[in-house]
């Protein structure tokens, strides 16, 4: 035993003495760490001052050639290694635009010097491949701001060896205002909150979550009822980070919120009155209302708008007939609650006439395998691949090779003209069905992004194989990204946010919850309505937007509702409902609500576009804007949309005037119609005083409605 240990020691020592410095294992990491390969320096697309390296060192072979072979070996000096240009410049012995990077005699300088002295060996890229990056501690919880924690990073190589690379790894924080990390891996927390530390080394990435607490004197966790598993995971997190959730919403608030989120419309005065009068126990009453709303035809309208955004249903690309056909397919899918996996499969594998088989329209807005791949991954996996088109993804594991391998699945998509005008046929190409790698033009073979070992992609139907892989219950990102997206529709942000930018460096705020939602979604065979119902029935969804002293600054843990501006269509329809008017719109059937408009060509350039209706040009959820602007405010205050609606001849105010209602009745109805709640006593007093001031009573009632429509309580879903 003893002799074995001794032998190991001796051989280790011998190995240490003979192991040469190699480029792949020792030098390339230095180029990355000191910044040579950064995007603003020699890693730029055109390099710097005639010297180009690959961005963040993703292509070591290229970098080796640049340093050793370029310009007949100009950058290294075998006879007098210390006079190598690659040392003279970064040590500022000779002028260097990039400044001092390798001070003479520093450890990195010495490593490079040694490498040159020993004969600029490239090394074995296979054994020097970093298989895994291990960071200790794997998670950091700091009880108060100002805490510090040193990370320790170990690289595990493909050949089984390990190395402490704490000094050499590259660190950054996704929220440096909460916790930051310095060049040597020392984490410091600055204020209460959560942040993720990114650790990069040789193409591998690790993420360390940091939770910084403040001392919260007087905090005690108060147990509240949990309606379903969502509340369990939310409460567990809140308890850990010392946050108390808000109170439950009032019934009126709940009904407005649930109606807007489920059917895109605020409740009518009658619905409100009935709901408020119903004495059933709160939770049950709300649960029944959720079912009722989900059974409404407007539910289909509302979710068709969301799908229309994502699938870019837009006649400028699809033509009138194609657009209507595609929209109808979506409506039917939503109405029949088609399982999500089936819906995606129908899109990905669509062939034939865009009129006969509407999902084939999916392939008409891109017409490029690369864009089709990017759209597919962003929509159905929540992954943005576009960075990897030109170089390996800087913040993710996706490589340039993978970008083209996945694109190759769409290489065979052919589009030809159909018999009718504007009809197109999607077919499988036999020739030219290939994607070429930009580096050397070789034809790239289709390969899944990850997993998929059980699926055999065969030449004839690559898209079918892709659909198998994409929609498989084993494809974790497929269910997760949709569960996360659905969640965001009810809370204004995803558990991972943005919802279509899932990556290791963008961690979920509550991973256990997201996993549970994903399991539930996959377990219920991708039943979207089941997910909607589950989320809406959680207590978390029904929390008030009013904060308490413990959760006022929480923005990511769903401890209170976050007011969301009504979407363009919601706002347009809410104005119609509140004022009892229905503007006539060209190009759609009479009495269509904005939620039923098929695309952004209806009422183009008007109110809806001002309030952020997307043109449907991209697959990014971000194309629908939810911003608040001065122009919007001016339009609400002075614009024709509101002014015409409140003064409508057959509108609500006009009818109230004719009905002989008292001032009090008028005021109560206007509050219910606009804000979905009865007026408070003080509001009632004020309004009564105003209406009683004499003059034109109808105009005064119109003024009141105008004022209510311009309040935050109307403009926001909260």
């Amino acid at each position, binding site marked *: 035993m003893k002799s074995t240990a001794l032998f190991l020691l001796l051989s280790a020592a011998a190995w240490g003495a003979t192991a040469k410095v190699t480029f792949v294992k020792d030098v390339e990491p230095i180029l990355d760490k000191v910044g040579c390969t950064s995007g603003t320096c020699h890693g730029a697309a055109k390099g710097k*001052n*005639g010297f180009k390296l690959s961005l963040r060192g993703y292509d070591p072979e290229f970098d080796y*050639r640049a340093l*050793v*072979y*370029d310009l*007949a*070996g*100009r*950058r290294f*000096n*075998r*006879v*007098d290694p210390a*006079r190598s*240009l690659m040392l*003279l*410049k970064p040590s*500022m*012995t*000779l*002028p*260097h*635009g*990039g*400044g*001092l990077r390798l001070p003479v005699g520093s450890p990195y300088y010495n490593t490079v010097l040694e490498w040159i002295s020993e*004969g600029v060996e490239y090394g074995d890229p296979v054994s020097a491949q970093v298989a895994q990056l291990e960071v200790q501690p794997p998670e950091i919880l700091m009880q108060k701001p100002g805490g510090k924690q040193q990370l320790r990073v170990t690289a595990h190589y493909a050949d089984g060896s390990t190395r402490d690379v704490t000094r050499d790894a590259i660190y950054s924080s996704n929220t440096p205002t909460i916790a930051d990390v310095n060049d040597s891996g020392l984490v410091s927390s600055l204020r209460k909150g959560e942040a993720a530390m990114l650790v990069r080394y040789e193409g591998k990435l690790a993420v360390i979550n940091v939770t910084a607490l403040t001392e919260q004197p007087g905090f005690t966790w108060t147990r509240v009822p949990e309606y379903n598993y969502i509340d369990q995971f939310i409460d567990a997190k809140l308890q850990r980070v010392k946050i108390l959730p808000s109170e439950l919403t009032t019934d009126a608030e709940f009904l407005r919120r649930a109606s807007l989120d489920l059917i895109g419309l605020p409740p009518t005065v009658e619905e409100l009155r009935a709901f408020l009068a119903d004495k059933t126990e709160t939770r049950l009453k709300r649960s029944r209302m959720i079912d009722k709303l989900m059974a409404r035809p407007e539910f289909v309208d509302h979710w068709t708008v969301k799908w229309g955004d994502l699938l870019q249903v837009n006649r400028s690309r699809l033509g009138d007939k194609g657009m209507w056909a595609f929209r109808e397919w979506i409506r039917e899918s939503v109405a029949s609650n088609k399982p999500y996996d089936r819906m995606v499969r129908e899109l990905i594998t669509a062939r034939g006439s865009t009129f006969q088989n509407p999902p084939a329209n999916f392939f008409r807005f891109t017409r490029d395998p690369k864009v089709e791949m990017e759209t597919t991954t962003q929509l159905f996996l929540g992954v943005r691949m576009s960075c990897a088109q030109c170089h390996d993804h800087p913040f993710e594991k996706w490589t340039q090779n993978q970008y083209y391998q996945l694109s190759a699945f769409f290489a065979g998509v052919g589009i030809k003209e159909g018999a009718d005008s504007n009809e197109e046929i999607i077919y499988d190409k036999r020739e030219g069905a290939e994607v070429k790698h930009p580096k050397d033009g070789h034809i790239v073979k289709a390969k899944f992004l990850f997993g998929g070992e059980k699926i055999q992609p065969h030449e004839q139907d690559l898209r079918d194989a892709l659909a198998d892989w994409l929609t498989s219950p084993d494809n974790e990102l497929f269910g997760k990204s949709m569960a996360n997206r659905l969640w965001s529709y009810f809370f204004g942000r995803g558990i991972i946010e943005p919802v279509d930018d899932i990556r290791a460096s963008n961690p979920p705020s509550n991973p256990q919850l997201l996993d549970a939602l994903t399991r539930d979604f996959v377990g219920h065979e991708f039943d979207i309505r089941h997910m909607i119902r589950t989320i809406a029935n959680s207590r978390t969804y029904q929390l008030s937007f009013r904060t308490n002293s413990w959760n006022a600054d929480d923005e990511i843990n769903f401890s209170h509702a976050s007011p969301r501006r009504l979407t363009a269509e919601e706002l347009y329809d809410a104005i119609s409902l509140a004022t009892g008017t229905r503007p006539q719109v060209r190009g759609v059937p009479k009495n269509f609500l904005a939620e039923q408009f098929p695309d952004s060509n209806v009422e183009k350039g008007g109110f809806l576009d001002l309030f952020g209706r997307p043109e449907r040009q991209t697959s990014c959820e971000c194309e629908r804007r939810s911003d608040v602007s001065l122009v919007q405010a001016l339009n609400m205050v002075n614009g024709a949309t509101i002014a015409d609606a409140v003064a409508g001849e057959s509108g609500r105010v006009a009818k109230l005037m004719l009905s002989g209602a008292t001032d009090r009745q008028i005021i109560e109805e206007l509050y219910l119609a606009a804000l979905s709640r009865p007026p408070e006593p003080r509001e009632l007093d004020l309004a009564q005083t105003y209406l009683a001031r004499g003059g034109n009573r109808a105009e005064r009632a119109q003024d009141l409605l105008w004022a209510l429509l311009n309040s935050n309580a109307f403009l926001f879903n909260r």
Partner: protein
Amino acid sequence: MRGRIVLLTGCLLALGRLGAEEPVSYYRQIRPILVQNCQGCHQAASRQSGLDLTTYKDFRTGGRKGPAFVAGNPDQSVVVAYLTGAVKPQMPFGGKPLPDGDLNLFRRWIREGARDDTPADALAAAPAGPVVYHAPPVITALAISPDGQWMAVSGYREVLLHRAGGGLVARLPGISDRIHSLAFSPDGKTLAAVGGSPARFGEVQFWDVAARKLRSSTVLSSDTLFGASFSPDGSRLALGGADKSVRLFDTATGKEVRKIDLHEEWVFGTVFGVDGKRLVSVSRDRAAKLIDASTGAFIENVNLLHEGLNAIARHPRKDWVAIGGDEGVPYLYMMDRPRAMRIADDSTLIRAFEKQDGPIMTLAISPDGSLVAVGSAVGAVRLYNLETGRLAAKCTGHSGGIYAVAFAPDGQHLATGGFDGTVRIYDLSGKLAQSFVPVPIAPAVVSQR
């Protein structure tokens, strides 16, 4: 503790006294501060505000704000105003201001007359005596004399003159770290060696072959020179440079006679036409430019632009040139257009050869005009038949890139050199006839490490 303070004070006093006695040295004190803090932006390659601070002369000339200093008057000197922040933006731009000690050095040096004490041999900065090699340097250039007797090979800070069949006969030392190009004059009496030290200077050397004597050396530009070629009558030497220029030198006097600025990037190769009236230069800017040798006027681009070009060679009897570069495809072009030029016209192209596995670094055409030798950065030399374009032979055995190829005047052999530092001589079937390391290798010493 107190003892230490006294000691420290003593040191300071000593320093102060030393400072009072000795005037500030530009070369030893001011220049290093400029190197460390200023030259990154104020150098020939970037010249922010028109200012280059790499030599005393450039420093004195100054940039857009006029001369950098007024000797004897620090307070009126631009450099002091910028360094103290009296004029914005304060220098070093975006960095920490210089410590007071350094500022005082500038003030004192200017007050004392701002004298230049750069030693005359500053460029060379070489250790005395011949270079001692423990490993063969990368071969960047080789040339064989017209009579076939001599082979010149690049070394480190020298040219090695060998008998063509091997056998070192002379070492021709110079100040340039790298010799990028070697050329014998047509009469064989003169050897031109062109190179320099990277990011420092370029140099043109003319050697008297028989006497093994340096006839002239011209230092110019702030980086190395490349691609030397003699005119057919031997009176002129053309060369390219990192400063994007093509230059013509007079062989007899060793003096520059013309500087031609047509390229947008480094110029790596030149060649004269058969009658010497025109020349073609190739550059990283992708162009092979046809130039009137007597006026320096641009005639036209010979080629369609693809990627950066590294090498050029001319047919022995025709105005045909082989060019190659980063794309890896050797092209054969004629210098004269067969018909009037049209847009995207490539009518001058005779032939494109097989794409190599890496960037083409060097080219040569055999004395009888039948073969072109192509050396690339991934260590292969291939011979192609100029008429048919077919691969004639492969010369293998190298490790690393090939940077120099030369046919022997008898047309029977090809010499190659590159990354591995070994000269290899092949017959035209690709069979290795001979190989040798051109530099004397000192016996190995035991590493101290």
